[in-house]
């Protein structure tokens, strides 16, 4: 499947990335080459195979994907806000959301 520069622009938008014209020109053939390489997976017959999701149990099986929902101590508001680029009145302040 060919990947065009306009595909790259669309992917960048989905990924919240602003990319330059130069980057678009560089990424399009590189990503196309990697995707073409990945297409070789179609050779492998996986019709009767389950996907390998989850962690490993002691026996090598798949771990549970849920756990008990317990309230635990956490960082707390002060520490959580300490490293914010723009904290105000106990919140994270951001530029306006609606243009």
């Amino acid at each position: 499947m060919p990947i065009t520069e306009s595909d790259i622009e669309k992917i960048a938008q989905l990924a919240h990335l602003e990319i330059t014209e130069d980057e678009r020109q560089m990424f399009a053939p590189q990503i196309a080459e990697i995707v073409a390489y990945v297409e070789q997976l179609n050779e492998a017959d996986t019709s009767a195979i389950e996907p390998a999701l989850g962690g490993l149990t002691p026996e090598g099986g798949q771990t549970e994907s849920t756990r008990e929902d317990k309230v635990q101590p956490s960082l707390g508001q002060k520490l959580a806000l300490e490293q914010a680029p723009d904290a105000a009145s106990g919140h994270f302040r951001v530029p306006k959301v609606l243009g």
Partner: protein
Amino acid sequence: MKSIGGITDSIRRGETTARAGVAAALDAAEKLNEQLNAFLEIDRQGALQRADQIDALDQADKAGLPLAGAAIAIKDNICVRGMQTSCGSRILGPYHAPYNATVIERLLAAGVIILGKTNCDEFAMGSSNENSAFGAVRNPWDTSRVPGGSSGGSAAAVAAGIVPVALGSDTGGSVRQPASLCGVIGLKPTYGRVSRYGLVAFGSSLDQIGVFACQAGDVAAILQSIAGRDEHDATSADVAVPDYAAELSKEVKGLRLGVSRALLGEGLSDEVRGAIEKAIAAYRELGVDIVDLELPHAKYAIAVYYVIATAEASSNLARYDGVRYGFRAEEAPALRDMYRRTRDEGFGAEVKRRVMLGTYVLSAGYYDAYYLKAQKVRMLIRQDFASAFARCDAILTPTAPTPAFLFGEKVNDPLAMYLNDIYTVTANLAGIPGISVPCGLSSEGLPIGLQLLGPNWSEALLLRLAHAYQQQNPLGARPRIHA
């Protein structure tokens, strides 16, 4: 360099102090960093303070700390309270971790002294260290060459004799490949052996914290402290942690080592092939049986890896948006522009490339074709190993296809760079442990590594095989740049 056991013993016996050892390590780190760029932060004050605390303990308390006074370097994607965690990226800006990773809590409880944070490829994405936003680490054997990646700073710090041990992380080979290129041991434990809590996430189903050292015994000592279940990481496994030191010197005679001839073919440099053939002969000398086997789906490993790792990365790196911590681009008129500019200015080219690739393979209409397909082929790779380990105890392969390459050699060809990981990614995909052990030097004097892969939870066996090999076949050389 003394082993950790040697260091702690002489501190306990009062022959030396933790302060003396750490001061020497700090001096070496500061001096050699000009040439190596291995450290992004050296914590002189904190390390000396901690050394004094250890020296002030009474004899009984010192004896209770298995790693008392051992200096360690930590890859800059593992959180240490009060120190920077940059992940080799600009996007984390002035971020300093407000908490310790579980491995750090456990190591501190065992008496280690953290010397500093080591340089790495941005968000652990790379095989050469050229993707660090703070300049590449240089290989202590030859500074015109790469140290490997992504944990290149940790590998170089150990190779140069600054610290006896260091922690890295391994998502597709990021501990084993730099260990190979720098001539040290690098262990990636089984997925779930070591808690990932406090390790900045890249590919969550692949990531595992690993250990660098010159001696198998030192790897064993560190693993002993960090292994085991942790409530903070749901994927950490509740599997008994064996006594790694006790297992280390058990005999290897009669063990079966699998070798896949197909993996020694195309793409492997002649010098590495020669070194691996010699290592196979050396294991035969030790009484190990060599078994021929095949891993039919290993050829798909890179393709599977670059779908799964990028998909998981695109999701994990979505959190870097300039809101809660780290860097924020200035003067964006609206929220969405702020996100995009922050990520544009904060991320380097390789991270953007992988985030975009991951976004693409997860996007509407492509999920089944790429991500789900890759997860199924991943299962085939797991099954290959399960069948292989029915016939042998461990598998021997090269760690990397070539010795350390030159800066700039592969930087403009992402796919060629990815193919560096051809021998290492299978272990992350299968979840099994792997270790790289130095097995000789190339004609240019560059280290070559062999890789041993074992079944789940077989770290003790891998360390034993590594130890037995090193006892008989020490590298017998050290890098040009050395403390």
